[in-house]
């Protein structure tokens, strides 16, 4: 059995000391080991940005694609090999700005992958510009007078787009984050896990302390029921999105793969590429 150390490699991350992404890396490694996966059974697909480098820092299969397109890439991988565990990961710019169209549709489509967003409310790799997660009034190099646009709420968007699994974690709580990733991977369908992963260099507002003062766990809310979509939506709105835990899970909805007519039970990558001459003749006859 592999341990979390087996998911480590010798590449030194180029993240700043103290970056929240280190915890996300560790949580993925621990969750993978806890789930009983072997490194070759996991594919980490990542976007572009500081966080996008994560696929190179885990000893598993990894594909670091183009900016904003992590989800199409990851869905393609899963459709080709349904036996692989596919974790997609990227930043808030990747998932909620340039890639927002894919995020909403991946949620609707409900292919069985796990999507971790390292949400630091800023563009780090390009050295500090506003993100769709930056609050109104947030001052950056690209918003010297403060952001005019309001921050978008990924949890509300996910819930309204028909998500079957929505969770939120925080880099300071490795234990909870690891468990959320495990639950996300186990979920039969698309799992969105938004993670508050502070940028210690460019975001002087949304710091570890800032989150610690504000975040509450949904498990601490009396009577919270993650299968109740309406309650989930109300709670997210009430606490301005500053909640962690499994916000919502629909265990009834079938995943995309289970609904595709004729879709192979075995990994499609192993499909026979030839057909019988009879089958070909049958296809041709339709054009006569």
């Amino acid at each position, binding site marked *: 059995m592999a341990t979390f150390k087996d998911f480590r490699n010798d590449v030194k991350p180029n993240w700043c000391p103290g970056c929240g992404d280190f915890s996300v890396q560790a949580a993925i490694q621990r969750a993978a080991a806890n789930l009983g996966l072997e490194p070759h059974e996991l594919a980490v697909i990542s976007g572009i940005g500081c966080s996008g480098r994560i696929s190179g820092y885990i000893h*598993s299969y990894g594909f670091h694609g183009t900016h904003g397109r992590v989800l199409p*890439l990851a869905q393609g991988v899963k459709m080709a090999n349904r036996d692989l565990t596919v974790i997609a990961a990227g930043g808030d710019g990747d998932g909620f700005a340039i890639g927002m169209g894919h995020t909403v549709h991946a949620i609707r489509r409900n292919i069985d992958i796990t999507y971790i967003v390292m949400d630091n409310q800023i563009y780090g790799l390009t050295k500090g510009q506003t993100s769709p997660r930056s609050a109104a009034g947030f001052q950056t190099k690209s918003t010297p007078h403060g952001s005019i646009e309001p921050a978008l709420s990924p949890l509300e968007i996910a819930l309204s787009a028909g998500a079957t699994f929505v969770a939120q974690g925080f880099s300071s709580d490795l234990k909870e984050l690891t468990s959320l990733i495990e639950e996300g991977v186990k979920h039969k369908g698309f799992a969105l896990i938004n993670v508050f992963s502070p940028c210690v260099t460019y975001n002087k507002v949304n710091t570890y302390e800032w989150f610690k003062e504000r975040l509450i766990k949904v498990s601490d809310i009396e009577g919270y029921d993650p299968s109740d979509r309406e309650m989930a939506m109300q709670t997210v709105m009430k606490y301005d999105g500053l909640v962690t835990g499994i916000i919502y899970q629909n265990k009834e909805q079938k995943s995309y793969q289970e609904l*595709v007519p004729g879709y192979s039970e075995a*990994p499609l990558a192993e499909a026979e590429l*030839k057909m019988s001459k009879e089958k070909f003749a049958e296809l041709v006859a339709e054009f*006569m």
Partner: protein
Amino acid sequence: MIEQLSWKVGGQQGEGIESTGEIFSTALNRLGYYLYGYRHFSSRIKGGHTNNKIRVSTKPVRAVADDLDILVAFDQETIDFNFHELRDGGIVIADAKFNPVIPEGKGVALYAVPFTDIATQLGNPLMKNMVAIGATSAVLDLDAAVFESVVVDTFGRKGAQVVEKNMEAIRAGAQYMKEQLDGSTKTMKLAKADGKRRMFMIGNDAIALGAIAGGARFMAAYPITPASEIMEYLIKKLPDFGGAVIQTEDEIAACTMAIGANYAGVRAFTASAGPGLSLMAEAIGLAGMTETPLVVVDTQRGGPSTGLPTKQEQSDLLAMIYGTHGEIPKIVMAPSTVEEAFYDMAEAFNLAEEYQCPVIFLSDLQLSLGKQTVEPLDYDRIEIRRGKLMNGELPPLPDKDNFKRYEVTPDGVSPRVLPGTKYGIHHVTGVEHAETGRPSETAANRRAQMEKRMRKLEHIHFPTPVHKQLRHEEPDLLLVGFLSTRGAIEEAMERLEQDGVKVNHAHIRLLHPFPVDDVRPLVEKAKRVVVVEQNATGQLANLLKMNVGHADKIASVLKFDGNPFLPGDVYTKCKELLAQWPPLKISAMM
């Protein structure tokens, strides 16, 4: 008696013009005639003039006819719009309902047939199309019974009574027309065909069938004219093979999803037209940089921007060769017939895996949507070759070492393992990377990896990079084209030969890497070269000049008005160019 017929049916979009053409041509195809159809349509669902021009011949035909023998008109606009195409001695068969009139001064006969009235009397005015088919059959001296099998196939689901009613409409149309005909139309009796049953399909059908034959089991695509039929066919058929099609949110997702699926080991592709290909440019670069096999079909249409979405053009060529930032190895191929589209599409998946790079499969609207008779397709010719894909168990790697997925090799192609394989772990990134896939920005590594990637296509094996028709050792003229212009060029060539011009023809099937060694001797031996293509800037001509030189003897015939080249266009413009050689202007535009 005629060996060849040019027939056109026209009316308002949405009133069954398409099915009229379909039933007429399918029936004739089943009799063993060779058919070539081209639809004129607009980017709207109802209303607006549409027509379907169909050429019928006892011999193979691959071009739209220059003129017209019979025009079937459901409205006056059809006559006004198309009358100029009718040859002297041609006829118009029009619905009497709209009191058709034809211009004077041309030897064309008008027959007003009450299509709608006859159909209404038989119980359903929609059957006016069948009446029109019947009227046509009387002119061609075809028995109405030849349409029966097609009518059964088309209406059988609705019951025997509907089939019989439609047959009755055909017979009634034929009977009415027979009574009207005078001696002048006797010459339109169609010579008998060979009776062989052949396929009748659009290019997109052949591309889709070729994809499945070539082992494609996953497709991601976004609807667009003129590519959607490819996706629709795979949606119908892939479940039989365990595969799937995802209609994505956009073309960026489609292309990137296909890359993800190919990375994980499925033969996957996407198909689109110019606007979609523009969106895919970055993803195609990712496939090039990460050496992931990828097949992308581009069914070209009129550009730029939304351009002429339902019209013929060949203006994406250079964008497809060069349209990613940075430099990647890429294969751009272009079949010259529907048969080649089938074989080449299957082969595209082999090339993508053997060279681990994107393959752009070019088509154009005329090839993709023109419906034509197709020679039998031989499945035995289809090979599956997967290049350096590693099968079976791999030996253990030293502790935590990555598999050298980007190993520098003499031919530039590295061994490839699929995710899920034990001891095959490696990283894949669009960032410049070392042999293990890990990012590396050193100058030495950059040179080694760049040279490795670009080396892959130095010795590409492509069975027939140029379709050649070489009749003369030293021709007066070499005609060059690509994709659907082949038929028009071949027919123009025959006419030029009759005028005493010695003509050779080269149709380029591999556009990138350009088959310099195949093309250069053809250009060198020709006195003059005319490149025939459907764009405004002479993209293929420029490619030719760049690769083989001889700019001073290369001229262009260009057409970019949205309509396909007719054989007469090519012939006339070549004559003009030859008469004033060296050309004052570099091109002779239509």
